[in-house]
Structure formats: C-alpha cells, structure tokens
C-alpha cells in the first residue's frame, strides 16, 4: 500500500535522525511512501486555527488528489491534522469557505474524504503486528522499554481513540512486545512531555521531563520509545537541563518509534542513527549486541 507521507518539520529539523530511520523501516516493511514536499507546517497547536486550518486543508486537498491515506510520524502533526480534518469534514460551510477563499486560487479543493494515520497506527491497523513479529530478526529480548505516546496521539479521545479503535490506547506497548521487548509500564505514558510550555514556563517543563524519565528509570527501563519527535526534543534534548534543574542523574535514552522497529528488523544502530541523540544510547546498543541479527 502507498501512503501520502507527511514527514513534518521536526523529523528533518531538530530530530534529523528520525526521517531516514522512518523511510528505511517503511521500505523494509514494503510500506510505499509518496513523500509530500509542497505542503506547509501543521501549526503544531501554536499557530491559530484561523491560519493553520486553511494551510492544513491545502495539504489534505493534495492528499485527496493522490487518492491515498496520509501517514504522519509525529503525534503532534497527527493530532493537529485529525482535529483540523474533523472540523473540515463535519462543517461543509466552513470547508467551502476555506476552499473558496484559500484554495481556489491554486485550483485546489478539499472534499473532506481524507484519512490520516500515524505510522504507529498503520503498523497495527493496516500492516499488522503479527506480521511485524514474523519479520523480527533481532528480538529486543532483555530490553525493557517504557512507552511514551505524546498527548496529541491520545486526546481528545473521541477523535484520536474513537469507538472500534480502542487498541490505540495500548498499541505502543503491543508494538514493543511484538518486537520482543519488555514493557516498563509508566503512569506518565499518555501525559504531556512538557515541550509545549518550554518558552512560557521552563521550570514546569523541565519538571515534567524529569518526572517521566525518572519514572521510566524507577520502573527499570533501559530506554523510552516515542512516536512523537517533539516529545523526543524534550525528553532527549532537554534531559540534561532537567538533570541540572532537579539535581538528579537520569541518563535515560529516548528512541524514536521507527528506530526501535528498525533495530528489531535487523538494521544496525548506525543505520538507525542511534549516535545522533543527546542522551547516549550506548547502553541500549550494547544490550542488543548480545542478540545476533
């Protein structure tokens, strides 16, 4: 199956290790990606809906033309797009106004038919975790992994976890298990990482980073995994700041979801860009070296 691939800004910006890892893993799984280049930033909940909805409608109109499901690799992109799509689908007058005022000039038009799915959901709902399990050549045995979803992948629940899709509440745990890893269940897995308030309230932001990474450490996790690069920027990028701020040692490696999948599929740590993290992933790599690919 081919997906209209929306990589988002961060997978090519602050987390450049994510984009190539995701592309390699998709290729290995025979998930075809048609990357979207002529598209704008989702707005990430920072831009006002008044401007981000038209920009996102433009992206969705292009996906509609391609006749594909759109794939994201970022919880925040996924959340913002799902919400925008909901407004555009459920309010034809609103959609029509955006079509008329913003898209018509380019000859674009959105009819409200597009589906948007995060790579994590595609793995479970379309590819199948059982099939993924069969393809694992380096089971993550002995690796204890704490899941961290990114709030936009779970809430608001009526949009992100609608009826019939309840597995989305625990799909990250199921994926870790399918890859042969052990789950370190942390209470904070569905909470905010703290990144959105970094500019307004650095202290609270770092306290959240510390809470989540320390909880993972206390539960004996070797690493955390997240489908959201913004969570990664916070939990990995700002972990050393959180350590200083809270005066504690954390040292919790944070993996992007495609990296964890890729390692289990037999990619080398280097191919998965494990060396491009702020918190060293050396211990995770060492643990996996014992397992022959």
């Amino acid at each position: 199956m081919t997906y209209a691939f929306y990589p988002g800004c961060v997978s090519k910006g602050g987390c450049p290790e994510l984009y190539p890892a995701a592309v390699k893993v998709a290729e290995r799984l025979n998930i075809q990606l048609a990357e979207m280049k002529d598209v704008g930033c989702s707005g990430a909940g920072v831009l006002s809906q008044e401007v981000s909805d038209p920009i996102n409608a433009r992206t969705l109109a292009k996906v509609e033309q391609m006749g594909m499901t759109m794939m994201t690799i970022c919880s925040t992109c996924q959340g913002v797009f799902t919400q925008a799509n909901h407004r555009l689908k459920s309010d034809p007058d609103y959609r029509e106004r955006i079509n008329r005022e913003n898209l018509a000039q380019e000859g674009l038009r959105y009819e409200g038919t597009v589906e948007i799915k995060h790579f994590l959901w595609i793995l479970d709902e379309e590819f199948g975790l059982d099939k993924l399990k069969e393809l694992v050549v380096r089971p993550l045995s002995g690796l204890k992994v704490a899941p961290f979803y990114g709030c936009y992948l779970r809430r608001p629940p009526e949009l992100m976890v609608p009826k019939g899709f309840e597995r989305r509440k625990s799909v990250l745990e199921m994926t870790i298990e399918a890859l042969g890893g052990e789950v370190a269940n942390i209470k904070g897995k569905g909470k905010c990482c703290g990144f959105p308030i970094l500019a307004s309230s650095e202290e609270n932001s770092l306290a959240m980073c510390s809470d989540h990474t320390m909880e993972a450490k206390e539960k004996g996790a070797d690493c955390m995994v997240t489908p959201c690069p913004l969570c990664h920027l916070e939990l990995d990028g700002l972990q050393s700041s959180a350590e200083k701020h809270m005066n504690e040692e954390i040292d919790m490696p944070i993996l992007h979801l495609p990296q964890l999948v890729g390692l289990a599929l037999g990619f080398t740590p280097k191919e998965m860009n494990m060396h491009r993290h702020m918190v060293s992933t050396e211990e995770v790599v060492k643990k996996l070296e014992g397992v022959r690919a």
Partner: protein
Amino acid sequence: MEVTFKVHRYDPATNGKGQLQSYMLGIDEDASILDALMRIREDQDTTLAFRGSCRTGFCGDCTMRIGGKNRIACSTTVGKSVKDGEVTVEPIRIINVLKDMVFDAEAMVYQKYRAVEPWIEPSTPLPQEEHLVSNEVIQDLRKVMSCTMCWLCDEGCTTMVVDRKFVGPAALTKAYRVVADPRDSKTEERLHSLSEEKGMWDCCHCYEATEHCPKGIDPTERIFALRNQAIKVGAGSTKVRNHYRSFGASVKAHGWLDEARLAIDTEGLTNIRGQLKQLPLALKALRRGKLPKPYFLHKKRPGAANIKRIFKLWEKK
C-alpha cells in the same frame, strides 16, 4: 448486588496518612456511588465524610476518585464501577484533603476562581435599553456556563501535577466566559492579567482537561481561544510573544518551521544571557549532527509562496 466498598479514611487529628476501610453493602447496580456512600454513612458509619448535594450531576460537589478514575459520584453507577466485587473510593489527588473525601476547596478552587474575577464588568454608563448579545455568542457562552465547578479538569491537568500554583483550566474556563462576553468592558485588561505567571501560558494544551470535563465544555479549546486573543492584544511575556511571532514568521516565509531560528528568536536576539544559556545545548546538538540551519540557510518548501498567500489573507482579516 453485594459489593465491598474500600473507602479512603483520613482524619488529620488521629490518622497521619489515611487508609482504605472496607464496608460491605447490598445495593442495586444502578445505584450511584453517592447513594452507596450515603447508605454507608446512614447505616454503618456516621463518621464518614464526603461532599454531595444535588444528586443529579448538577452541582459538581461530589468529585472523587472511583476505581482509580476521576468521577462525579452521583453520576457514576455502582454496576459500572465494580471490579471483582469491589469498588475503591478515594479523594481527588492534587488538593489537600481535610477529611476522608472532603478536600480543601477554598485554597485550590475558590481562590483561583476569584483570581480571574469571573464576573462581567459592563462599561458605564449602562445602556438605556437591554444589552443584546448575538445568538451565536450566547450559545457558545451557555455551553461554558454549564460548568458545575466540579474541578475534574484541574484534577486531570498535567501542569497542576508539577505546579499547584497554576491557575488551572477550571478558572481559565470561567475567565473565557467573561472574556468572550461582549457585555464585558475589561477584555484587554483581563487578557494581560491572565497572561501573567501561572496564568494561561502555563497550560501545556494536552487536552486532559477536555477529556476530564463531564459537561463537554472543552476547557483546552477555551484556553486556546484566550491565547489567540491575548496574542492579538500583545499580552504574554516577551518570550511567549517572541515565540509566537517567530513561529508564524518562519512558516509564512518558508512554508515550514525554522526550529533553530525559533529557539534564537524566543530568547530574543539581543538577549545575550539567554543566548549564552542555550549555547552548550546547541554545540552538543551540532556535534551530534542535529542542529538545524536557521534563517536564510533554512530552505524554503516548494509551495512556500502559497503558504505565504494564505498567511497574508489571514493577516488582512
């Protein structure tokens, strides 16, 4: 059905930590948890303390944790809460407990509500005739006015976990109610005061408040609406305003976000101390090959001109 209610008991005078006490009760599965607690208090233990008033989900008084989940006790049935013949009933967490399930509403709830001055300040002199409000606005306000002050949104709030001084979604939703009311004359003043420390900008917009609200008021979206208005009147700390300005400017110019520029602009170009503080992290990112290129080095997306056009249309409005 026969149910064991494991109820949190805490008395500051005699009991330092609080513990669960079991009560057996034969009760209908359609009965509410509040019904059950009232039966226990009437028939078995008159010392049990909890709040409860309307018994119809209208007053927001009986907020507690039932089976580990934040709930309104009168709107939660025994049948839906029971697990292996047991139901645990505890007080909500992010608040000081006075006794059993009774929490200190004054310190955490009422003071915060008062702080946002949730009453309309009409302009003077008052209009001679009735002050008309459009149907669209009043329908929106009616939804917000259905808030029962149950405090579940604050209980679910992620920021509140790390900072109890945060004003919280409950009070901010009340603030929205007056800010969005055209009869109020202090809109701008309110937006500035709500933008102070521990105010609206401390919300991490994780949608927990929206998930927790039993009335479907969507506090998270109300906070977004307050922020959008605040930005328009220039409220918010320098950093917050810089952040918003830079985010918009880079998407407008390049079609996508210039993250390095965002980090620099947020601190302020001339804020040497702020920039120096970021330097070690930036250098480490550079060593790891993950420092994005800022400003003119940040490549434009192919459709950037069209994104800019959409931006300009919005700005004109």
